Structures are given as structure tokens and as C-alpha cells.
């Protein structure tokens, strides 16, 4: 069994390198060794699920998952619904519950998205907590819960309409004291479907000729609003998400295949375009919404 060591910190900054390692796995069964995981955010958790899914498909068997040794990290993964979501992805002994369930501080637990009913469930579930978190932690107006829900709805629909494969979504708030000096909400939505190049290829690849690839497909969808649908009303989801994220001075990046494209604000030093990554299936979307300056 091949051992793949999960980095000690698995979040939006490290997940691409981790997925690159998964992309080049061979056919021998993999042990995802997360024993030394000390920090994980929604990008890391959902990233683990898509990584496990890709490994399982390559290896025709479920990979094994070694849970973190830290009870704090394991408890956090439990509260985020990771072990529940990991059933069917990893072979894993779920950790023993240490105490009775308490009111969770989780904004949106890891939720599978494969049908429109799942999008309704996601939007319904965030209503109760998102309002309080967006106003108290980010300083957004009470009506922001509507725009936040619209972002979640549109980004989850992206999985159903374009990936033609299941995916997951999760969201949580953090205090980025060192990195930004502010609270943030991190949203992660990932799938292992056909990706942007696959979704747009039939309609648009011809006009790009030899230049067609993951980068041009991402640019076409992310920057120019292209979609595989001929209807002029389609393809606005990502454009409107970008607009709202910009209004909140947030960051959005999308990896698909070998490239990641982003709309990043001044406070974020993430490059707006990265290519040359290992080919990884589907699309991996990360959104960071920061507290209003001064909050």
C-alpha cells in the first residue's frame, strides 16, 4: 500500500500541492496518512474527499484514511461532518465520540451536492446561522445573508449543471489574525466531474484551436462568462458570484485540470492565474469573504 502523507496544514494555500500528489498516484492502494494534520479548513476537508474519490477510481478500491492524532482536529472534522461524508470514499475507522453532541459552531457542514434538492438543502441550512455569522463576525448588513445564499446556490449549481458528477460544499468562519487581522468566511465547493474544459469543449474549443486547454477554458468561463448553453440568460452564475465577492473585497479562485484562475483582492497575494498543475479531474472552487475593514 502506498502511503500519501497529508500535510500538517491543509487549506486553500496547500490544497493544490496535495491534489497534485493525488493526480499522479498509480494503481496501488493508497493510505492517506493524516495523523499529523494540525490545521484544516473547508478546502482541506473537501479536498480530502475529492482526493479519496480520485484515488478510489484509479485503484478500484477505497483508499484507507488514517485520522489525525490530535483530538481537537478529529473533533473538528467530526463537527464538520467529514467522517460521515467520508463513508464510501475512504475505508476509515470513525473516531470515538468523546462527548455528547453540543450546539455546533459550524456555518455549513460538508454537504454532498449531486441534485437540485441538495442545493435547496444547502440554502435552507445556512439560513439560521449565516445571518448571525455574517453580521457579528464580518460586519455585513443583515440582508447579506440573501447574497451569501445566492452565492452558495449558484456555485453548487455549477456542479450539477457542468460537472455531471457529484461534489461537496462546506463553509466555516475563522479568525485570520496573522494573515489578515480579520475574521473571514471560507467556502469550498469541489467536484470530480469533467471540469471546465470538458464542459465547454463541444461548444467553444474549435474557435480556440490549438490554444484550447484548461487555462483557456477557465478564462472563457471565469472572465468572459462563456457557457455550453446557447441561451443568452445562461452562464451568469460565476459572473455574478465574482461581482458579489468583489463587493465584499473577497477572493475567489477556481482550479480545473492543470490551471487555477482567480479574482484576488489587494490583501491576497495569490497569483490570479496558475498553470502547469498536475491534471486533476473536476473543478475546485474556493471563496474567502473577509470582515469589513475595521470590524
Amino acid at each position, binding site marked *: 500500500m502506498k502511503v500519501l502523507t497529508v500535510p500538517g496544514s491543509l487549506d486553500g494555500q496547500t490544497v493544490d500541492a496535495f491534489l497534485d500528489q493525488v493526480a499522479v498516484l498509480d494503481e496501488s492502494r493508497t493510505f492517506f496518512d493524516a495523523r499529523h494534520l494540525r490545521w484544516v479548513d473547508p478546502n482541506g476537508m473537501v479536498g480530502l474527499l475529492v482526493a479519496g474519490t480520485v484515488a478510489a477510481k484509479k485503484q478500484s478500491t477505497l483508499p484507507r484514511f488514517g485520522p489525525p492524532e490530535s483530538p481537537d482536529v478529529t473533533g473538528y472534522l467530526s463537527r464538520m461532518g467529514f467522517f460521515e461524508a467520508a463513508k464510501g470514499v475512504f475505508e476509515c475507522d470513525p473516531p470515538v465520540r468523546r462527548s455528547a453532541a453540543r450546539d455546533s459552531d459550524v456555518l455549513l457542514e460538508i454537504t454532498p451536492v449531486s441534485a*437540485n434538492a441538495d*442545493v*435547496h438543502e444547502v*440554502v*435552507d441550512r445556512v*439560513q439560521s446561522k449565516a445571518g448571525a455569522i455574517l453580521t457579528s463576525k464580518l460586519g455585513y448588513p443583515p*440582508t447579506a445573508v*440573501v*447574497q451569501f*445564499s*445566492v452565492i452558495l*446556490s*449558484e456555485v453548487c*449549481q455549477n456542479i*450539477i*449543471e457542468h460537472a455531471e458528477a457529484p461534489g461537496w460544499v462546506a463553509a466555516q468562519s475563522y479568525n485570520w489574525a496573522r494573515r489578515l487581522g480579520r475574521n473571514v468566511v471560507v467556502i469550498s465547493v469541489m467536484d470530480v466531474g469533467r471540469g471546465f474544459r470538458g464542459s465547454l469543449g463541444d461548444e467553444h474549443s474549435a474557435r480556440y484551436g490549438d490554444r484550447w486547454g484548461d487555462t483557456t477554458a477557465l478564462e472563457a468561463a471565469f472572465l468572459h462568462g462563456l457557457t455550453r448553453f446557447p441561451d*443568452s*440568460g*445562461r452562464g*451568469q*452564475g460565476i459572473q*455574478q458570484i465574482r461581482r458579489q465577492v468583489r463587493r465584499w473585497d473577497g477572493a475567489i479562485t477556481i482550479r480545473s485540470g492543470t490551471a487555477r484562475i482567480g479574482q484576488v483582492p489587494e490583501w491576497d497575494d495569490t497569483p490570479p492565474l496558475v498553470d502547469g498543475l498536475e491534471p486533476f479531474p473536476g473543478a475546485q472552487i474556493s471563496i474567502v469573504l473577509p470582515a469589513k475593514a475595521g470590524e
Partner: protein
Amino acid sequence: MTDGMDRIAIDVGEVLQRTVTSLYSNLVTRPTGRAVRMAIETRLQDAGERSLSLIDLSEVVILDFSCADEVVARLLERSRENPSHEAFFVFRGVLEPHRDQIQTVLERRGLAAVAETHEDTFELLGDRSLAEERAWTVLEQRGLLTVEQVDDVLGDAEERAGLDSLVERRLVFRSPKTGRIHALSQLARHLL
């Protein structure tokens, strides 16, 4: 009605619960929006040659872009494709949380719509020219313009052309009998 116009009031929140499932309280995802739009279109099939529909979004909490596109923009666009039925629409309950989505989908399809954006306050949303906006505002303030009044209250040819365009786009109603031009908000008043 003397204007030969059937008045129809449609509560979208109620249509959502009855058409899709009572479990859904938000107007999200394109299939949901499409189902609600088709249910509205079915209601309109029973109307006569001309109808004015008040589409009430007041009970909708979350409206995403996909649903706004189906329930507002596609509804308007498809209504124009029916040669046997002249349909007019007023959208109610277009409060701040819904406004951006509706404005965006209308602009994207080159459409405009009359919407109640605050209690008793109507606006023209979507894609419209300055002349259309000015003519619409004058008519909205007065509620009704007779043929004789048009030249008096609309100062220049551009505004009068704007009014004609509003008639053509079914954003106001010109009575075929009297030639009077009505603000849709006034015609929909008893439905509010």
C-alpha cells in the same frame, strides 16, 4: 373591465410550494424556477386576449439568478412569443434582496419590467433608454395620459418616441379604444 384586460394575481411563494414541493421555501436552482415559470404560464393560458398579471414575490426569501432568469426574464420573453395573447406584467415585492438579481437577468436579455420596489413605489427595472425612463416616470406620476396630454407633458420628440417604445415593449398600456396610455401600476392597483 372596459380595457378588455383580464387581471390575474399570482403569489409566487404559493406557486413554489404547490408546484415544486412544500419543503422548499426558497426560489433557487434553474429546474425550480422553470417549474414555477411553467405553472405561471399555465395560469395565464386561461386568460383572454389581453391580461395584466401581478407576479408577487413578497413571500420569496431567497431568489437566485437562475430562478430570477426563469421566473422574471424568461416569463417576459416567452410571453412576447405568443401572438394570440397580449400579456402585461407587474412584479410585486421586488425588495432590495431581490433587486440585483432581477435587474441583472433583465439587462442580460435586453428586457425591462415594472416592479414595486417599496410599498406603493414602482420602478422601471432592466434595460431601458433614458427617453423611455423619462417618459415612464412622467406617466407613472400621472397614472394616465390622454392623447391630447402626451404632447403637453412630454417635452420633446425623443421622449414621445420613448413612450411609443414603452407601448411596444408592453411596459405601459395604450387603450385601443380611447388611445389613452395607462401606467401598469395604476391598472394593477386593485390587485395589490
